[in-house]
């Protein structure tokens, strides 16, 4: 809640130059997480560089390769309701609409969605230790209340989860993140964008210093036939996932030719198991096979007490969501389990 300066960038290059002015200069787009963190005295920017008005970030356009480019500055709601996204990438549309609230989706941008910080109670309380917020200070979550915490990919340092829904779908769709920085532009495959906590839980992703997300590319394949997003939480809407699952299939009759399963709410990044997906390829789309795939996905899952249930829940959620993907019309508002 410190005082800070404010500038509007005039283009991407200008934004990247302005943000390099000091260690504590940040971009601001939707602001839905940054302002929240600033008011909790967790982030203290010296200056904010407003990138909301950059036309370069605000389009959704078809790519020559048949894919779709989502501008980083496009609002989550505008992305979810975009006709091409609704028709060709319905999984992404459903996942975005399962996140936050209508108001927040009208504010939050696609780029910002990728950069959300964890909702860990301890991260959010500057008065208590947290290795993510204050490296080396400790992690009260492991021995504390950890209902929301990770079961996969945890480290001694951190058991926080990444809270996005949109990113679970982007992970399943093999999106690519385009960034611009002081050293020029580059593209990062989605699975390499976020990272596990390891011994650097302060780092949520592999963006380099002062890099700006400019767009997200969706590949041509949208899985409009068989898809489902399921979100399980402590109320039916406007709550973060305890477990969420994004599933898509390409089916050849009842045989799976391409399977994607990504989990949210269980790890420091959207969680995919290529082993499990490969296992399903060439197999019948059956509850038995989905259960075997779930076991592969959850191999090595570990609870910390209050979140032990997530292991059992995730397995059942994966199976159910695979079944729902066979009948996408059964999906309910808020990504609730099908009736």
């Amino acid at each position, binding site marked *: 809640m410190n005082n800070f300066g404010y500038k509007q960038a005039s283009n991407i290059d200008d934004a990247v130059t302005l943000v390099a002015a000091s260690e504590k200069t940040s971009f601001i787009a939707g602001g839905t997480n940054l*302002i*929240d963190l600033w008011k909790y005295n967790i982030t203290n920017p010296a200056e904010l560089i407003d990138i909301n008005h950059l036309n370069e970030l605000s389009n959704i356009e078809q790519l020559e390769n048949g894919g779709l480019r989502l501008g980083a500055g496009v609002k989550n709601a505008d992305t979810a309701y975009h006709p091409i996204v609704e028709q060709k990438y319905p999984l992404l549309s459903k996942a975005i609409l399962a996140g936050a609230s209508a108001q927040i989706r009208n504010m939050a941008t696609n780029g910002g969605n990728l950069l959300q910080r964890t909702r860990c109670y301890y991260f959010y309380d500057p008065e208590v230790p947290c290795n993510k917020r204050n490296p080396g200070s400790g992690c009260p979550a492991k021995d504390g209340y950890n209902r929301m915490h990770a079961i996969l990919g945890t480290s001694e340092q951190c058991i926080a989860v990444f809270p996005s829904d949109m990113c679970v779908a982007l992970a399943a769709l093999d999106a690519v993140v385009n960034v611009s920085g002081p050293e020029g532009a580059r593209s990062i495959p989605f699975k390499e964008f976020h990272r596990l906590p390891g011994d650097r839980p302060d780092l949520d992703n592999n963006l380099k210093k002062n890099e700006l997300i400019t767009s997200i590319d969706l590949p041509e394949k949208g899985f409009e036939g068989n898809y489902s997003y399921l979100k399980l939480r402590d109320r039916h809407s406007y709550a973060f996932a305890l477990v969420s699952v994004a599933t898509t299939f390409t089916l050849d009759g009842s045989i799976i030719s391409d399977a994607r399963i990504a989990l949210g709410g269980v790890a420091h990044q959207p969680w995919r198991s290529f082993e499990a997906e490969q296992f399903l390829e060439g197999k019948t789309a059956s509850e038995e096979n989905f259960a075997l795939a779930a076991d592969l996905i959850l191999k090595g899952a570990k609870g910390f007490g209050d979140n032990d249930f997530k292991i059992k829940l995730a397995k059942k959620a994966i199976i159910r969501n695979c079944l729902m993907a066979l009948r996408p019309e059964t999906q309910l508002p808020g990504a609730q389990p099908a009736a």
Partner: protein
Amino acid sequence: MLTETQDLKQTSAGSHTIDLTINGKHTTLSIEPWVSLLDCLRDHLNLTGTKKGCDHGQCGACTVLCDGKRVLSCLTLAVMKNGADITTVEGIANGEELHPIQQAFIDHDAFQCGYCTPGQICSAIGLLKEGKANSRAEVKELMSGNLCRCGANVGIIDAIMQVKDGGSYE
């Protein structure tokens, strides 16, 4: 009495001058970058109809319409909205004539303490403009960003359904 467009506060060195159209009235004010749109409305412009319930984007009480879209004023910096057209609950009625949503809220007793009401009303108007909610279940889902601690949920959804089905909104 203060007029709606008069800035109640002194300004400081770090201020930016911004133009806002609030409830149809053009306003120029000088504001520090760290002032939220919510605090700008309430503390600087005396438009206290927009409510502060959590100040962290978790209750929806501060919902306003910004260029026609429902947003949370608590997570918006006023400086970011330079040039925007803002509608708050004070600008919903047409003079003495209530907006159909406002009347439906009264008719369905869609509030008790009234504190979440301005946010619910702005959010409902945003929802109807969006046109994405076709069923009661979808209205409930798309209104879930507005908490009501008094538990007036049934009345709120009934009021919105009545206006939605009646089509008597802009």
